[in-house]
């Protein structure tokens, strides 16, 4: 596989009152598996359904009900693991994580503590052209989501919605390889991008399809390198976990706040208490979630209702054979195949639909020109109007048609912009529009020459000036273009004007 050359970004340094500090960040990302049915029941996973309408007996933990693993969800997790270049464990097992909460009907969550389905992998997190952080994945395990408790509908009662109960999640656990708030957000964005490419998670953070628990600690410059040499986590400082973040912006703000909070404590001679914290977007602060007395003992043990999950290497290979080209490979290929910048390649490959659209436009045409048109004209306009590529009024065929007209010399770049605007707002076949609206550029040198002659004859004073200063030739070009309604081939006009003025 082709990777673009890159170097690691500099870690973020925060200056405290007394010294400089670095950040160490590890994430647990909870990604909802794209699947019609839940992990252990046939109930639907559709978002936004009537409360408690997508609930099977087993989801409600009715007496005697048993979980049966949904093979598709496992395939999706394997696919995700393969997309993160991770070890797939042919034998894994489900464990119960026990705690009481009304939106957890069984009184335990079925998860994978001891033997996760996916082992070590890695993600390359782009931080700008030529700069990327390699983040190691420790594991991915499959688990059930909980339901939703609603506390603000009634002053005396809480309500429970079990629609989400039992939906399959992948918990993607990173190593503490992330060194700043921006990197953390970029890491989540990269995971999201890869899973969207794979079709294993829709990445919709607003609907809760992607949430992150962020572990943050601070250390002195040099400590991280010591950790890398020795593998000793203790030099990285005591970490706090900020739970359940569902926006890239909040992730960054929470890390920034949390790091500064820890630095202030440490510089004051205090020490950090390892704990779970919540980020409050209203105040921009993190606060402790529970006291030590209430610390949970989850009493994990192997779920006796489920046999160990054994999968075949052949099955894994079959899934591997259907993996799409992933963002890193695609980006590298765009740079080499189309000669575009890494930046442009990054923009075009952000979403797989965008990349596919671009490639349809670029097929058999000039890749650089296609990239410019797709990024600047189409994406620019779509973004301005708040649309995605799926809602683009201009198809790849139409945009390709415009590019063909430019390439053939039928229209100038300037006319092409007008044509694009017409196609965008009114639709239609670009070639037919050019014909119907007489937009074809004049390439007949005789006609252009006649026009140039006319203007030279009418403006003797300008001719004198231009002969003394050839830069003024542009004025004549402009006049010719004006006279031809912009349809004259600019290159031909340039040539003829400079020849005539040179006479």
């Amino acid at each position: 596989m082709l990777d673009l050359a890159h170097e690691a970004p500099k870690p973020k340094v925060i200056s405290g009152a007394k010294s400089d500090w670095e950040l160490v960040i590890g994430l647990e990302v909870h990604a909802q598996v794209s699947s019609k049915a839940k992990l252990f029941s046939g109930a639907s996973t559709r978002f936004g359904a009537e409360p408690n309408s997508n609930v099977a007996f087993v989801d409600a933990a009715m007496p005697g009900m048993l979980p049966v693993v949904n093979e598709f969800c496992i395939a999706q997790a394997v696919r995700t693991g393969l997309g993160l270049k991770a070890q797939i464990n042919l034998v894994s097992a489900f464990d119960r994580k026990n705690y009481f909460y009304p939106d957890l009907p069984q009184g335990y969550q079925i998860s994978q503590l001891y033997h996760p389905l996916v082992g070590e992998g890695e993600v390359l997190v782009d931080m700008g052209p030529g700069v990327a952080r390699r983040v190691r994945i420790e594991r991915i395990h499959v688990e059930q989501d909980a339901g939703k408790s609603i506390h603000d509908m009634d002053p005396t009662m809480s309500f429970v919605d079990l629609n989400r109960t039992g939906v399959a999640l992948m918990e993607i656990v990173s190593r503490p390889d992330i060194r700043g708030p921006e990197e953390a957000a970029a890491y989540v964005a990269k995971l999201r991008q890869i899973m969207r490419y794979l079709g294993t998670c829709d990445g919709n953070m607003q609907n809760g399809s992607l949430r992150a628990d962020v572990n943050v600690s601070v250390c002195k410059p040099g400590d991280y390198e010591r950790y890398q040499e020795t593998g000793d986590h203790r030099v990285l400082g005591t970490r706090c976990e900020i739970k359940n973040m569902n926006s890239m912006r909040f992730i960054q703000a929470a890390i920034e706040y949390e790091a500064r909070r820890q630095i202030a404590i440490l510089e004051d001679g205090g020490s950090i208490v390892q704990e779970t914290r919540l980020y409050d977007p209203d105040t921009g602060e993190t606060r402790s979630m529970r006291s030590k007395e209430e610390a949970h003992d989850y009493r994990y043990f192997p779920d006796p209702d489920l046999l160990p999950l054994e999968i075949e290497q052949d099955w894994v290979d079959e899934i591997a054979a259907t993996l799409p080209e992933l963002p890193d490979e695609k980006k590298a290929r765009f740079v080499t195949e189309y000669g575009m910048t890494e930046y442009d390649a990054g923009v075009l490959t952000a979403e797989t639909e965008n990349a596919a659209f671009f490639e349809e436009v670029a097929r058999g045409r000039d890749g650089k020109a296609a990239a410019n048109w797709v990024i600047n004209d189409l994406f620019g306009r779509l973004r301005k109007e708040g649309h995605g590529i799926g809602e683009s009024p201009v198809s790849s065929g139409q945009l390709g048609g415009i590019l063909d007209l430019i390439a053939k010399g039928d229209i100038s770049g300037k006319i092409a912009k007008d044509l694009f605007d017409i196609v965008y707002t009114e639709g239609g076949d670009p070639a037919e529009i050019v014909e119907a609206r007489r937009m074809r550029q004049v390439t007949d040198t005789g006609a252009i020459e006649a026009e140039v002659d006319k203007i030279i004859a009418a403006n003797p004073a300008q001719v004198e000036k231009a002969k003394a200063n050839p830069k003024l030739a542009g004025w004549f070009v402009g006049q010719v273009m004006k006279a031809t309604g912009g349809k004259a081939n600019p290159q031909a006009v340039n040539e003829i004007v400079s020849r005539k003025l040179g006479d």
Partner: protein
Amino acid sequence: MSLNQLTIAEARDKLRGGEITAVELTAACLQAVEGADALNAFAHKTPEIALAQAKEADARLAAGNAPDLCGIPLGIKDLFCTEGVPSQAGSRILDGFRPEYESTVTRQLFEQGAVMLGKLNMDEFAMGSSNETSTYGNVVNPWRRGNDEAALTPGGSSGGSAAAVAADLCLGATGTDTGGSIRQPAAFTGIVGIKPTYGRCSRWGIIAFASSLDQAGPMAKSVRDAAILLGAMAGHDPMDSTSADLPVPDFEAALTGDIRSKTIGIPREYRMEGMPDEIEALWEDGRRMLEDAGARIVDISLPHTKYALPAYYVIAPAEASSNLARYDGVRYGRRAKLSQGDGVLEMYEKTRAEGFGDEVKRRVMVGTYVLSAGFYDAYYNRARRVRTLIKRDFEEAFAQGVDAILTPATPSAAFELGSMADADPVQMYLNDVFTVTVNLAGLPGISVPTGLDRSGLPLGLQLIGRPWQEADLLDAAFALERAADFGHKPGKWW
């Protein structure tokens, strides 16, 4: 002889032969049930359902080709969820719970045309060996010590099933067995009970006690009846991940009684310190009977037997503590009345405090303790290792050519209700000493009545078989049953 005294095999033949109708048979059973309230075997009676099912069965019988169980009245242990019928596992915490679904085992039975007389009393959540922990009150054993009127335990947890079958209230019953809950009450009431190999019967719809140990099985008047019932209860169920995808043999057809090529092992570790002479003698008689029937008898060793009971009383409560977490008052069953200002924690605490009985609470607490951080390795993991060793003991015995293992079913005959009230709970747990090993190893085990003690109470022997070889095991039990020719019934006093 009234119809309710028939065995399943006899009734089947009479039904097919048109000698009796399912409605007549059902009516006889319902009458027997009505007259047996003193036994408290039924937690919930379903006469309307029974008669409706009996009518349907008669129609099927008339059409011909009716299955074996068509028209056979059964009792169903309260642990089985039965659609629209109270299913409370003998617990207060499931007050008012009527499932909207039918357990796989009972669905299979009813699809075969079996008739449900009602739900049978049991120890709460199948936790107990004397049937004294039920919210419905204890079941009384139909057997008495001669003329002594002292009420005896039918054993547990399937005590209602055992008493109902022994007293001829039904022709057979479903039971479940986590540590001996089929075999011990069967032995205490002079009937046959088999716990099949773990995974033979679906657990779907059976209220869970300890998932890795729970198995459903039949309780019946004879080995033949047990074979017929087991055939209808068993089978692969895709809804239970631990259910085995194996064909179910014709167990009844396997009953030849010819065990001349078989090797029976006698495990020396089951000769417990302080074992009553009567049990020792019963075991010796069994050995001799099998030998006389032509089997080869060998002494074997199952060296880790003594660790089985402690391991069981770690693993079963651990799983139970988690399985019973769902009874929280949120969605179904009982919810405690709350006081002003009570929150969700108070709801849990009060609901579970009043909903669970003492034995359930004890096991939930033990289970929570052995799974908690810092104790997990010392208890739960160690118990799991013991379990592996116990399993290996059996595997080695079978590898040496042993076909079945003969042991006592219980360390004593039925004891008096209330006699253990002040005893250390461990004294009660000792009832399971011969049976828990079988659950830990996932093997099939059957209890067959083979004798009476001095006071006239039934005693049973246990045969333990190879995994999935219930057909062979039933055949050995059939030989033992024939040789013992037990034939005793409790005198009717109720």
